[in-house]
């Protein structure tokens, strides 16, 4: 379920942990940057609010990371599950202490957020990893779209409302994605190869006009490594994956 990047990281993680526990403390530096997003994400989910690296909770999470590097043994299960659980516990403890220091004793009242006392589901941390992978894809897509002067806001505005229209548009996107010539045109000129599409593929001129941005976004998703996003878009384009 995890993207290829994460898997690679697993073996890399175990390697780094082993070195760390053998005494090579700098071994953690190699993958620290890779692990940090996960740590912050777990902290965010625990408190049900956005946690940045500047927040107090970020320090707590990082301390927890070190602790895990010290203690983790592969036979204890998934590294991420372990790391995630430790961070979560520390954050919960921190929150409880914080509440106690205030005079209002609402720490024992039911929270209307992610329930602290409930144990998490088995795939809880795996899902967080998936979320992170998607987030990375989306970041990449956002940057690519930027080159074409397209934002996500643009996309929701021009999204065809009818399913049929979306299918038509995605099929055009597929045609472009599958054709080297047309893709090149799009990439170089940052615009749709309208004439060829109209003449050679009998595409409606209005369709191209109205849904230009939607089609371009579709081409990018289909053509590049957007595995998660692709699954949401491919059915419209005709099902089979594009090489």
């Amino acid at each position, binding site marked *: 379920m995890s993207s290829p990047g994460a898997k690679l990281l697993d073996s890399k993680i175990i390697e780094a942990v082993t070195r760390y526990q053998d005494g090579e403390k700098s071994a953690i530096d190699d993958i620290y940057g890779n692990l940090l997003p996960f740590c912050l*994400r777990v902290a*965010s989910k625990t408190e*049900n*609010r*956005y946690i940045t690296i500047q927040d107090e909770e970020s320090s707590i999470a990082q301390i927890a990371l070190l602790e895990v590097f010290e203690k983790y043994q592969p036979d204890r299960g998934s590294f991420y599950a372990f790391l995630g659980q430790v961070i979560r516990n520390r954050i919960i403890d921190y929150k409880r202490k914080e509440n106690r220091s205030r005079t209002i004793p609402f720490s024992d009242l039911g929270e209307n957020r992610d329930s602290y006392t409930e144990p998490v589901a088995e795939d809880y941390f795996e899902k967080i990893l*998936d*979320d*992170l*992978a*998607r*987030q*990375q*894809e*989306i*970041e990449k897509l*956002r940057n690519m779209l930027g080159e074409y002067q397209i934002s*996500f*806001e643009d*996309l*929701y505005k021009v*999204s*065809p*409302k009818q*399913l049929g229209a*979306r299918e038509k548009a*995605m099929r055009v996107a597929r045609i472009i994605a599958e054709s080297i010539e047309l893709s090149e045109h799009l990439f170089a000129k940052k615009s749709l190869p309208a004439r060829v599409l109209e003449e050679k593929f009998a595409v409606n001129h209005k369709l191209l006009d109205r849904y230009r941005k*939607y089609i371009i976004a579709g081409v990018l998703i289909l053509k590049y490594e957007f595995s*998660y*996003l692709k699954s*949401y*878009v491919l*059915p*419209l384009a005709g099902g089979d994956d594009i090489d």
Partner: protein
Amino acid sequence: MTREKGIVLEVGEKWAIVLTQQGKYKRIKTKDFLQVGEIWQEPTGYLMRYALVAAILLVLLGAGFSFLPVTAYAQISSGVELGLNRWEMVVTTRPLNDEGSQLLQEVSLKGKTLEKAVEVIVDKTLAKSDADNKDIAVNVVTKKPNDEQNRQRMIEKMDTKIKRVLEQYNQKSSINKGFSAPEKDKLDNKGDRPGIKANNEDRPGKEDKGKPGSNKNDPQQGNQGNNNKGINNNIKQRKDKEAEKYPPSNGIWQNFKSKKDADQTKEDKEILKYFERKEKDNIDRAKDKNNNGNNENRGNNKDNNRQNNK
């Protein structure tokens, strides 16, 4: 009720942009905490609430007019029993005889006010059988045993309505029959109004006299008897004067006056006023010519009025 799913692309203050499973980019409003890359699902809360509201509405509409328990039953001899609620609207109907069940099949009375339902029933009854022989009796049974006041009131209400319907029905049939010769002399071409008959003979047949709880007719007849004497005197005198130009016979006028005011429709009242005005004109005009006659007329009219208003 499948919930829409999507990948969160961008997040803002209480909103987010998602790419749905159907390939649509959508901007959603949300109170939840969402992060980019998460999978979003349409909250069931909304769907459930809308579904609930829709269900309630359907039930209400489907149930039709079964609101509120019956507090009284109104029975009409045409063969129908109406179950009425607090606001005197029909919530149940029950046939009392064959005619009644046929009537109920023809029209739906549920949801109608008592008056409207009575109107419809009487209309249909008259239209059907030989109208001259038809007697219409009413009765009301209330759930609360000692609510006699209400009961009487409802009977009166139905009574009034029936009378009015009968009148309108008579008027209609009069148009069909046309005017008879003696009456034509009385009426002037300009002033008369078709359909209003001076002749009372057509009417009594419909109205029941002696039965308990039925339409009360007697006072009306009595008044007319008294008035006719005065009328004839007036008419004679008028014929000699310019007053002859002006419309009709006091016969009609007296008919209106003899009814209870409640029975008069707006139309009736207008006609009444018109005649009153004309009557006044008549008196004034003829004053100069024949004082005695007029005074006598005035006296007669006043007497008649006094009698009527009693």
